[in-house]
């Protein structure tokens, strides 16, 4: 239970930073997606169930604050967290490469989904344009921020959650 609480707190902090401070640090009109980093970390460190529920929670926060329908972003983040859980058996302390790759792939999936639910439904078919304008900058920015943020999340995981896990 403690791990869920800690991931939820991390999620809350990341959401708040993402919607306030990060919007002032825009690069190429994009804001890094911190929620996906937490969802990926939860899945990668702890497994499918953790990734799934943390992703779900993060998505619900987005849906409640900015979305028009409830569940749209929750759905995609839930799958991202769940899929990250497939790699949990390869988890190595303080490894950056695999989670970084996972973050990039997940963020690409998220922006692609975002294109479908926001743009395609409005009849904007020029996907290549939106790739250049939104998807790639966002993936890249998220990746850069993700490498740094993941280090912190991993530090929390190794120092707080790992000892607890071993006791159980």
């Amino acid at each position, binding site marked *: *239970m403690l791990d869920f609480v800690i991931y939820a707190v991390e999620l809350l902090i990341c*959401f*708040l*930073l*993402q*919607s*306030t*401070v*990060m*919007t*002032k640090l825009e690069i190429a*009109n*994009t*804001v890094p*997606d911190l929620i996906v980093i937490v969802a990926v970390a939860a899945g990668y460190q702890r*497994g*499918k*169930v953790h990734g*799934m529920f943390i992703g*779900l929670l993060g998505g619900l*926060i*987005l*849906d*409640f*604050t*900015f979305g*028009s*329908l*409830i*569940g*749209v*972003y*929750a*759905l995609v983040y*839930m*799958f991202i967290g*769940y899929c990250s*859980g497939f790699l949990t058996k390869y988890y190595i302390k303080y490894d950056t490469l695999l989670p970084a790759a996972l973050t990039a792939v997940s963020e690409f999936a998220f*922006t692609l989904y*975002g*294109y479908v639910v*926001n*743009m395609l439904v*409005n009849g*904007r078919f*020029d996907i290549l*344009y*939106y790739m250049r*304008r*939104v998807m790639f900058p*966002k993936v890249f920015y998220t990746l850069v921020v993700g490498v740094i943020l993941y280090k912190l999340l991993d530090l929390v995981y190794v120092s707080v959650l790992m000892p607890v896990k071993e006791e159980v």
Partner: protein
Amino acid sequence: MENRYKYKFNIEPKYLLLFSTVILVVLIFLSYRFQDFFRPLKTRAASMFAPMQKGIAVVSDYLEGVSDNFEDVEKLQKEYDSLKSDYEALKIKYNEILTDSYEYEELRALFKLSQTYSEYETVGANIIASDTTGYNSVFTLDKGSDDGIKRDMNVIAGSGLVGIVTEVGSNYCVVRSIIDDNSNVSGTILKAADSCIVSGNLKLLEEGYIEVTEIPLSSEVRNNYQVVTSSLSSKYLPDILIGYISNVSVSSDGLSMNARLTPVVDFSKLDTVLIITTLKTAPEETDKEQ
């Protein structure tokens, strides 16, 4: 306790995923079908975040202030805030005078302007958070139903229209700006006196434009004509300046004309806006708008 813990993880994750997916899909449909039922739940949950976001916004503004000045930051900040609101008000006045003098003859004769938007009562608000998906231009303001804000109130910033309030919580409200792809505003082209629809378009926005469609073929619209909100609109108050027309062309179906529009508001530098507390109470006939 340990039993419960074990039991929880005896369910196969894939069934848990399937179950949650079904619930979410149902939730999406329900929240689409029963918007009035879900809206209060949503805003109540979201209003938890507003004070935290406001706190962070205040702290980051404060830190920005500290890095700029070392002496008496608070005093300067207060003075700055009051000057800023004065400035916004003056900007509206200035713009109004400019509009009037520029087109005095035609306007008065054609439209019999009874009201201009500087006469509406407004409430100042700060942007505390923005949507981060990269596709939408939606942001949160620090005023909510406790301050008398209601859905569909118009939001302006100094020189023109910013957007419309779409969600209201007790301490926050969400505004969809006119540059968002889901935004459609019915407008009137001054001078030419023709109607049109102004829509957001992320692709055109890269060049600083949004889209104008459904201008009648007979229109004598030219570049730099002003577009204001139409009196036919069901949600937008009349005669709020939206922007200036350019690149007029005949649409692909040949039935109307399209154009581009440069919004008067600089959306990249927006941080303080004014909410007009007067609601439009027109018969609901132009339901094209959102």
